[in-house]
């Protein structure tokens, strides 16, 4: 058994692309599914097509950016209180 075979399939480089393709297909399917079911939006803004997909993506990006920004001010080495 050589070094490559010993590694789990998740860690093999050639599979990374397949995982991304598979993931993208699933994402696409959830958006397409919106065409097939009747939505009952409670607010006007939620009537936009694929609102939840766009909103989920953008709000997460915003939260990561905000955390990163806040991190500049409040991050300290993890032995900060021991010194």
């Amino acid at each position: 058994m050589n070094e490559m075979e010993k590694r789990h399939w998740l860690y093999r480089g050639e599979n990374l692309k397949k995982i991304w393709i598979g993931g993208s297909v699933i994402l696409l399917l959830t958006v397409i599914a919106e065409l097939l079911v009747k939505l009952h939006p409670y607010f006007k803004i939620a009537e936009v097509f694929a609102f939840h997909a766009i909103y989920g993506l953008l709000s997460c990006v915003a939260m990561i950016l905000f955390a990163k920004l806040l991190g500049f001010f409040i991050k300290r080495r993890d032995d900060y209180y021991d010194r």
Partner: protein
Amino acid sequence: MTASLLHPGLVLVLGGLLLPFIGVTWRHLWVLVLPIVTLVFTWIVPEGLLATYTFLGYELQAFRVDSLSRLFVTVFGIMTLAGMVFCYRQAKRAELAAAMVYAGSAISVTLAGDLLTLFVFWEAMAISSTFLIWSAGTEKSRQAGMRYIMIHLLGGVVLMTGITAYVLQTGSTEFSAMTPDRSSTWLILAGFLLNVGAPPLSAWLPDAYPEASFSGMVFLSAFTTKTAVYVLLRGYPGTELLIYIGLFMIFYGIIYALLENDMRRILAYSIVNQVGFMVCGIGIGTELALNGAAAHAFTHIIYKALLLMSAGSVLFMTGKRKCTELGGLFQSMPVTAACGVIGALAISSFPLTSGFISKSMMTQAAADNHLLMVWLLLQAASAGVFLHAGIKFPWFVFFQKDSGLRPSDPPMNMRVAMIVFAALCILIGVVPGILYNILPYPVEYVPYTADHVVVQLQLLLFSGLAFFIMLPWMQRTMTISLDFDWFYRRLLPQLATVSIRSWNMIKGQLLSLAGSVSWRARMHLHTLYGPRGLLSRSMQTDVVALWVILFLAAYLVFYLFES
């Protein structure tokens, strides 16, 4: 009345206090049987007021059962049983005893019908949970436990002040719905909010819990914050302020968890985040929202304990807690990883898991009440939960880069506890009726509609996409994030050091000044009254007699002139 003897909380409190005196073999049986007894008692006692007693002239309702308290006691009982199965062979005797008293006190708070009984067990909970933290036996846990008890004693004082004022104002000790419109109810609310992990003092939770042992944190995650949710549900339903406090807690939890490196601190911040959802639901205050908050407390206790059992197993087997030191563990710990992933899916409210059927009740309540901003924030927060707990925890612990660590799955009893809780997360998700039937209000809400499942999957999967697109930004660093505890861990000690130093300097100056003043005074007195001093010389009788005659003569002269 025989029902009054079947108090589910006292079984555990007394059982925990007796535990240290029981031998090892019987102890194993003891810790597993008593939670079962508690659960049986919980379901055989009738609803209503089951025990009263008089204390200082007040009629106290020590034991009151209704659908809301039974719901919470049930999940506390299930939690105690599974927690004991998880660690009864591995945890120390002191830890098992503290955990039992802690669980029993939480149950007794839930069953208290008056404020004084509630307060007594509220404090018992604070003390026993501190012992639970200390039982980890490390220097860090000793210090963290000390900070934890300080904060909770402060909260206890605030709560007691509020209760005393309330009893004086209303003449009643009964614990029922209140409105924060005067000092007493504000203080009681503040005391409750401290335990729920509300700002600004949320930091006690992520500071103390992760310093407990691998199993201690499993118990800690369940009781303190959820009894606080219970008392808010009963005491302050529909208090609008709670919506905003809840929303703050939700985003505080997400942002701090995103910055965190320690896997158990990630999960601790996530407790604040999840409890924030419940607090927000209580603030919305409709029957659907209150049902949602109660249901979410129920499901949250189970999936959060599952996540912490999974993290605890990793800690137990590897001794490591930091994301930067872990990774790739799914290869050698398949059961732990699978259970961790199921917990992560449940906390993220994936369809077919317990989180989906509980959290969605609260977002639906926000929509029904036309609270657009609240609804938008709750949706963003749902996406954020998947980001910080749903993906981040399993990804960095079990997947990401291969750390090279190859620990095996933990011992049998720990695996059993995890598998049972993972199964419960899915069972409640698939058959929501089990939970909906025991909620305080009748449930008409239907979680599984095609459009709800589709939009929820969109929301979650696209936040997953955000995680992997921004993965370079998510890489962990060996850092912590400053929080409000900085004020009492850094600023106050430094102020104290500075003020002690300055006082010592001033004291030195003052002492030398006082020294020189007193030396001068002594010398002056010495010149006057010393052995050769002017005023202490002895005089001869004739001289004295002469002086007396002279004075008398002078007096005579003055007298003659006067008249």
